[in-house]
């Protein structure tokens, strides 16, 4: 593992409020290329909020986000995606009425002619279908009906589609918000393999999960949030598993 000196993504002193709720209270973290960073914390700790700020869905109230050491304004999800940040959202962000291929390319359709503004362009449906099919194939995701709307697919299949979508476009930073939450053992394994693969391809991976086994197996470092504060950062190992858990739940270690 050759982590570059400059983190692919840095968050500095991030604050986010929703009315009276102070969801992030000065959180900082660094994510390096070729590494997996686990983002841990109890429900309501602020993990998803942090993810949504990095992905351009929410704007930070204070603090800044740096990509390769440069401060960037990620004020829309489109900007974040163009900057190479891919996110698997906790709620999957799938369109039930669209097919897997249409879901893959939603928001960045392969289209022509290029000189027109994107909404006025024509869809290159065949290219998108082929591309998506080859990805689904490569990832060995089993879908019974590739051209049916995802409304008709099981929880595991849906989650696989959401993860696969992010892996196609991953260029820089990949964030997975509880990607194995709805999955059985075998399906979880597949997602973890994908996480491996994303890391090996040189992405900085941020993984949110409640599964300590996965954290110890995969993560190079772990950042723990509690009630919007960052309460610890350490290298997760079997030896400090208890310390990690008590950081998360806030008990005296």
């Amino acid at each position, binding site marked *: 593992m050759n982590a570059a000196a400059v983190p692919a993504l840095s968050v500095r002193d991030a604050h986010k409020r929703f009315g009276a709720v102070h969801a992030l209270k000065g959180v900082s973290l660094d994510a390096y290329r070729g590494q997996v960073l686990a983002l841990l914390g109890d429900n309501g700790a602020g993990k998803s909020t942090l993810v949504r700020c990095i*992905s351009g*869905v929410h704007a930070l109230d204070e603090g800044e986000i740096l990509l390769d050491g440069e401060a960037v304004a990620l004020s*829309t*999800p*489109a900007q*974040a*995606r163009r900057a190479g940040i891919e*996110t698997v*959202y906790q*709620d*999957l*962000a*799938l*369109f*039930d*009425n*669209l*097919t897997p291929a*249409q879901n893959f390319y*939603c*928001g*960045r*359709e392969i*289209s022509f002619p290029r000189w027109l503004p*994107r*909404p*006025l*362009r*024509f*869809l290159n*449906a065949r290219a998108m279908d082929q591309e998506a099919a080859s990805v689904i194939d490569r990832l060995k995701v*089993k879908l*019974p*009906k590739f*051209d*049916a*709307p995802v*409304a*008709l*697919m*099981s*929880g*595991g*299949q849906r989650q696989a589609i959401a993860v696969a979508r992010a892996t196609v476009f991953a260029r820089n930073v990949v964030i997975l918000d509880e990607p194995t939450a709805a999955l059985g053992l075998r399906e979880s394994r597949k997602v973890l393999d994908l996480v491996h693969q994303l890391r090996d391809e040189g992405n900085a991976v941020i993984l949110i999960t409640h599964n300590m086994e996965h954290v110890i197996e995969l993560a190079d470092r772990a950042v723990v949030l509690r009630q919007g504060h960052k309460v610890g950062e350490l290298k997760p190992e079997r030896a400090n598993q208890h310390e990690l858990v008590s950081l998360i739940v806030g008990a005296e270690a």
Partner: protein
Amino acid sequence: MSDTTRQRDISSGAPAGGRAQASASLSPVAFGLRLLNFGPLLILALLVVVFSVLTPNFLKPGNLSNILAQTAVIAIVAMGQQLVILTRGIDLSVGANLALATVVGGLVFRATDGSGFVVITAMLLAGTAVGLVNGLVFVFGRLPHPFIMTLATLSICRGLALQFSINNTTMRGMPDAVLFLGETSALGVPNSFYVVLGMALIVLVMTKSMVWGRWTYAVGGNPKAAVEMGISVKWVLVSTYAFAGLCAGIGAVVLSGRTGAGSPLYGTLLELDTIAAVIIGGASFLGGRGHIGHALIGALMIGVIRNALNLLNVGVFYQMIAIGVIIVVAVEADVMRSYLEGRARNQAARAQ
């Protein structure tokens, strides 16, 4: 349309793209879904059969041409309504918007005395402008739902149309170009039918082949995800309402052409007719699902029912009751479809 029909075939477990799924197509859930997808078309066919048995005049070419002419305005405006409903919205202002556009057309006709081009452009611009206002205030005024905004423009447009029409009532006179579109026939079919056909083709291309159309489906399917996927949901919505307004403007041209007049009284309850057309045609009231064919089938159903009940001398009140009952059936079918899809999903999970 082909795209969605293909999806729908598959979602109902029918053989698709040469890939037969024998086991799925036999299951009662898949069969039910398939039946629901074709339901509106079946009901329309059934109505045609029943009415042609009940009244011999129904199938005469003159009467069929009549139905097309009577259906044209509802069909045109329903195409815009369908897109709005697809994005989880509603446009209550289309009828009043249409009335205002005919009045604008009538006034421009008098002021400029003649040019069909100018009058038609004025009507289309008036309709689009109202739709644009709907969309802009709804989106950037952060209103929770378009219901109130379009209710407000319904009132405003009707008021403007009544206030500014001469003597606050119907104004006779329209340029020849407008009359040509609304009144004349070619090949035994009213020209307004060709307007419907042309629009349907354009809308088909916009919704199925263009990125904009894909985005309207995305916004209707999951607005939150659409934001997360980087789609400018706000502008998709604004453009959708503007387009619905344009459709009202086109409807205004056709109606003015048929009647040779502009009137603040036109389009009364057209918003209900178009919403009903979209729903009984088989689109989902909850958004995200439906296509242009639904709007057209629904409009035709309404036209057929009205026409046949007229021929049968059934009073207009009973016509309203009949259409109301069909709306309830259609909405219930939509609920049923969601239920069956849930069942299909469970089957998919168990099949894994």
